[in-house]
C-alpha cells in the first residue's frame, strides 16, 4: 500500500477510513517496516484530524484485546442473578459470535444440579456434574461457586457458618462477620475465615487453598474432626497452600498465577508453561473423554487458555503446532510424539 493512497482531506469519512487502514497495516507487525513508520508519522503530522482519528480508532482496537476473556462473559452474567437451586443456574449461550471459530471452543456447559435440598439436620447439600459449575448464595449472603464434579454441604444459621467440601473445588466469597467465623472443612483440613475470597480444592485426601483476598487460617483436625493437633498456617493474598498427608506447603504466587488457577470460574483453563500430563489432568476433570499422554509427549510444556470443554480444540492445536500424534479410542484420546 502506498502512503499517498491516503487522502489529505479532513472530511471525517475519508480521514477515518485512512486511519483505519493505517492501523490495520500497523497491526500486521511482521510486515511493518521502518519506512512505514516514517510514512505514518508524516501522515499524522499532516493534519490534527488525522492524528485524532488515528488515536480514537487505535484506542478502540486496543480495547478489543479484552475480548480474550469474552468467552467467560456468559458466566459473569450468571453471577449477577440470584441462585436458582432447583434448575440449571447457568447455561452457556452458544452465541452466534462463535460460529465457525473452532479454537475458542464453545460447547454448552450445562450446569446440572444433581441434587440439592435440606435434610433434617439443617444441612443444605450441593453437587455438580462433570463439566458443570454452579454459583450459590448462602443464607448469610456469602457466595460459593462450585467447579466440576463437586459435592458440598452447608449449615448457615445465626450461631454458626459451616461448609463441608466433600469432593471437588469451590470458590468462596465470604460475607464479613467477625462474630461468626466461616469454617470450610475439606477432609481433615479446616479453613477458618472471617470474610474473604479464596478457593479450596479437595481430591483424594489432598487439599489446596488459594487466597485471593484477605486472610485465612488453615489447620488440620484429628480423625474425629476435633481440635487441631498441629499448628495452623495463616495465608494471605496470593498464597497457595497444599495440605497432604499431614504436611502443609505454602507458596506465594504472583497475581497472574492466582488468577490462572481460578480461570475455571469463567470456564477457562489457563496454563503457563505447564507440562502436557498436567494439562491433560486438568482437562480430564471437566470432560468424559480423557486425554492420555504417552512417552516423550510428557516433556512438552505449553502455555495458553482454553474452554474447559474444548478438548478437541486443544488436541487440534498440539497436533498442528507441536507435532503430537493423536489416536482416538472410545472415550480416550491418546497423545504421543510423532
Amino acid at each position, binding site marked *: 500500500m502506498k502512503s499517498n493512497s491516503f487522502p489529505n482531506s479532513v472530511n471525517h469519512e475519508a480521514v477515518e477510513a485512512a486511519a483505519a487502514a493505517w492501523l490495520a497495516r500497523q497491526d*500486521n507487525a511482521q510486515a511493518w517496516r521502518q519506512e512505514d513508520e516514517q510514512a505514518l508519522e508524516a501522515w499524522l503530522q499532516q493534519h490534527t484530524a488525522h492524528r485524532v482519528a488515528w488515536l480514537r480508532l487505535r484506542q478502540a482496537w486496543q480495547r478489543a484485546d479484552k475480548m480474550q476473556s*469474552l468467552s467467560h462473559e456468559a458466566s459473569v452474567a450468571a453471577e449477577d442473578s440470584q441462585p436458582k437451586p432447583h434448575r440449571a443456574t447457568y*447455561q452457556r449461550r452458544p452465541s452466534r459470535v462463535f460460529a465457525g471459530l473452532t479454537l475458542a471452543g464453545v460447547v454448552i456447559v450445562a450446569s446440572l444440579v444433581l441434587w440439592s435440598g435440606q435434610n433434617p439436620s439443617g444441612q443444605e447439600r450441593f453437587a455438580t456434574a462433570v463439566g458443570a459449575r454452579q454459583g450459590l448464595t448462602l443464607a448469610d449472603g456469602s457466595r460459593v461457586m462450585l467447579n466440576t464434579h463437586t459435592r458440598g454441604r452447608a449449615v448457615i444459621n445465626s450461631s454458626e457458618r459451616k461448609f463441608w467440601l466433600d469432593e471437588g473445588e469451590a470458590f468462596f466469597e465470604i460475607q464479613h462477620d467477625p462474630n461468626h467465623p466461616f469454617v470450610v472443612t475439606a477432609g481433615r483440613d479446616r479453613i477458618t475465615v472471617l470474610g474473604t475470597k479464596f478457593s479450596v480444592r479437595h481430591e483424594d485426601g489432598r487439599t489446596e487453598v488459594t487466597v485471593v483476598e484477605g486472610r485465612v487460617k488453615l489447620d488440620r483436625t484429628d480423625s474425629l474432626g476435633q481440635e487441631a493437633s498441629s499448628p495452623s498456617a495463616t495465608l494471605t493474598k496470593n498464597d497457595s497452600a497444599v495440605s497432604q498427608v499431614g504436611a502443609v506447603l505454602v507458596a506465594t504466587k504472583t497475581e497472574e498465577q492466582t488468577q490462572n488457577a481460578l480461570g475455571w470460574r469463567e470456564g477457562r483453563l489457563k496454563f503457563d508453561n505447564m507440562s502436557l500430563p498436567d494439562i491433560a489432568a486438568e482437562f480430564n476433570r471437566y470432560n468424559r473423554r480423557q486425554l492420555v499422554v504417552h512417552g516423550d509427549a510428557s516433556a512438552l510444556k505449553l502455555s495458553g487458555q482454553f474452554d474447559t470443554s474444548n478438548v478437541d480444540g486443544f488436541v487440534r492445536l498440539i497436533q498442528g503446532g507441536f507435532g503430537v500424534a493423536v489416536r482416538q479410542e472410545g472415550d480416550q484420546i491418546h497423545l504421543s510424539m510423532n
Partner: protein
Amino acid sequence: MVNEWFSAEVLPLEPALMRLLRRHWRYAEDLPDMRQEIYVRVYEAAARDGLPASTPAFVFACARNLLVDRARRAQVVSFETVADLEEMPEQPQADFTPERLADARQELRLLQVALDDLSPRCREVVMLRKIEGLSQKEIAKRLGIAEGTVEKQITLGVRALAETLYAQGVEVAAAWMRRMRRGERDQ
C-alpha cells in the same frame, strides 16, 4: 503527552459529547464531522497551551463554541436550535462525564455487541486476531484468503468496533442486558 491525555481523558467523554451534539443539532449526518472538528480543536489547543485543568469543562466549551459557530453559519437554522443554544449552560451539566464502564463484565458485553454487529467474515478475522492472537499472516493461512483481504477486514473491523464502543457506549451495554434478560425468560 498530549496523545496520552487525549486517549485517557478526552475519548472517554465521547458518549457524553455525542449526546450533547444530538440534543442540540438535528442533522445526524453532520455529527461525525462535528465530533472530529471538536477533537481537532481540543487537541490543538492542548498542544499549544498545555493541558486544561478540567478536561470535561474544556471539551464542553469547545463543543458549545462549535455548535454556536455552526448555527450562525448555517443558512437555515430552526428556531428551536437557536433557542436551545441560548439556553445551553456555560458549564457542563452533571451528565457530561467520562464514560467508564463500571467493570470488566460490562466492557465485555459491549465488546460482544460490537462483534455481533460485524459481518461474518470480518467477525471471524477480528476474533482470530484478538481472541486467539493469530497474526494477520496466520489468519490468512488459516482461512485460506489473501493477506490483503485480512488487512482489509481488519480495517473495517477497527471502524465498526470504534462505532459501537464509543458512540453508543453504555446504551449498548443496557441493550445487551435487556437482551440477556429476554433470553432468560425465553428458556
